[in-house]
């Protein structure tokens, strides 16, 4: 058998412009979430009947909407609800998914069967419909949206965690670690958990992106954030009617969503490559 040749020295990836752009955008987004005032001093909810549907210009970089509110200020203000919904629902799903996943892998035949069926049931109902169901039960608003989105994304995490735990349980190096004399708990804490973190982190990152997009869809359907809140999906929903007269108010919020999801995807895939590279040997 011929062994693969291994290049000595770490292969250095060239600097990737897409990755840099993505990271830069996420930094900007973080500023918008934490300190929106740093980016604009205009009040996002201040309506001005004399300034409705103004095109982009010096006073209003991205124009104004049908109520005369500054589109740029509203996009900056809209970052917070979008990103927080994404982060909170992903965190909730990650937590629930980890518990279910570990239960599915370590809970014996009965535990595994119950978890698998439970996940199947949640997966059987299309995500958006399930979120809508949560909204129908809990009423519309941010809280129900977070709960619904978390419910929908939980099975993905649970399956991944379950797969990772099983993969690592059977991995040669985990068996070797048992042989080195660690106790069961020590092996889990030192080898299983840290190695499972990589793929889970990647999924959580990508999950934040898709959750932000889903939350925007919800607002567009009128079941998420409500006027006069500055929220990207809601802004698009309202401004569609004025598209022919004021394209800017229906285009820039869309670009904001797309760019956010895209930046998260690019960074997430980069993380994935790094973890995969570490795993391949």
């Amino acid at each position, binding site marked *: 058998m011929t062994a693969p040749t291994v290049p000595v020295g770490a292969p250095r990836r060239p600097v990737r412009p*897409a990755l840099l752009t993505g990271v830069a955008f996420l930094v900007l987004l973080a500023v918008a979430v934490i300190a929106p005032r740093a980016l604009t001093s205009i009040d996002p909810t201040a309506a001005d009947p004399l300034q409705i549907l103004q095109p982009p210009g010096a006073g209003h970089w991205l124009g104004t909407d049908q109520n005369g509110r500054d589109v740029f200020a509203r996009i900056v203000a809209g970052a917070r609800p979008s990103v927080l919904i994404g982060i909170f629902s992903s965190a909730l799903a990650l937590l629930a998914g980890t518990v279910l996943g570990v239960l599915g892998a370590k809970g014996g035949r009965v535990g595994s069967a119950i978890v698998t*069926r*439970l996940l*199947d*049931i949640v*997966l*059987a*109902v*299309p*995500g*958006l*419909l399930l979120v*809508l*169901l949560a*909204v*129908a*039960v809990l*009423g519309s608003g941010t809280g129900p949206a977070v709960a619904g989105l978390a419910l929908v994304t939980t099975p993905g995490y649970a399956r991944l965690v379950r797969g990772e735990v099983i993969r690592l349980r059977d991995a040669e190096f985990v068996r070797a670690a048992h042989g080195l004399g660690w106790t069961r708990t020590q092996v889990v804490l030192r080898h299983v958990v840290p190695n499972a973190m990589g793929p889970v982190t990647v999924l959580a990152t990508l999950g934040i*992106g898709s959750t932000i*997009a889903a939350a*925007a*869809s919800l607002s*567009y*359907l*009128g*079941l998420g954030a409500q006027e006069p809140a500055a929220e990207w*999906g809601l802004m*698009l929903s309202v401004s*569609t009617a004025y*598209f*022919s007269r004021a*394209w800017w108010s*229906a*285009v820039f919020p*869309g670009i904001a*969503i*797309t*760019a956010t*999801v*895209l930046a998260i*995807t*690019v960074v997430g895939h980069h993380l994935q490559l790094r973890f995969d590279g570490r795993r391949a040997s």
Partner: protein
Amino acid sequence: MTAVRRLLGGLAVVWGAVTLTFLALHLTPGSTVDAIVGQSVVTPEVRAQIVAEYGLDQPLWIQYLSYLGRLVRGDLGHSYGQGTQVAEAIGEQFGSTLLLVAVGLGLAFGGAVLVAAATAHRSRWWRGSAVGAERVSVAVPPFWLGILLLVAFSFSLRWFPAIGSDSPRGLVLPAVALAVAPAAMLSQVMRHALEKTLEEPFVTSARARGLTRTAVLARHAVRHALLPVVTLAGWLVAAFIGGAIVTETVFARQGLGRLTVTAIEGKDFPLVSGLVLVSAVAYVVVGIGVDALYGVLDPRLRAST
């Protein structure tokens, strides 16, 4: 043996989804009668009739059993929002959505296969642009994409009829809007699988027998590239049904998606439950079909059963 087990598993999933909606109905704040009636205005006689029909004065487990009993008999209840039987309301809209989903699915698959086959193992630049386009396509919110398509091709260029049209030409834009994100997802998965397959020794063997690149792709690689796609089928069902909800709203099309939004907005619980049941059944049916397809595509799985 396995077919029976698969069928029982499917039934369990449908039963679970039904139970989920039953629980949701009873977890809703306020009285259950209000939840069933939704935002419709009904007479006290009708309310009394609902209490009798649903057995709302009975213990919860009896309500649950009679609910299951009615479902087994095919009775999905009465939609007070629509003023018809739930089954009827769904039946009326089913065809329109099925058509939209079928065309969208066709577009997504066709597009993904073409893009993946044309870009797998090609120049960095060519492949890189495809990956970039795919990432953007996945990131664009589908409803916004629908709006942009409408503005560009319907209002400005006037190539396609505007919203609310039931003509075949009116199907083009909604189907495209529905297909873009899943197509981009699929082509990423397919290209990855194709590239892995083209590096397999059996591809070298096949080429060493004198096969052309096209023959290698058609006889060997495509089948392997379809394997991971098949496992995505469940995800696809969800993506398309969820997508239909948004797309039908954007394009003001008739269909189950619109019906869902109306039902949720009107808090029309019997209708919502019916819709959940329909999508759960769709998921299960596709799952069983996919399992069968998997065996056809990969003989190694057939052998183990």
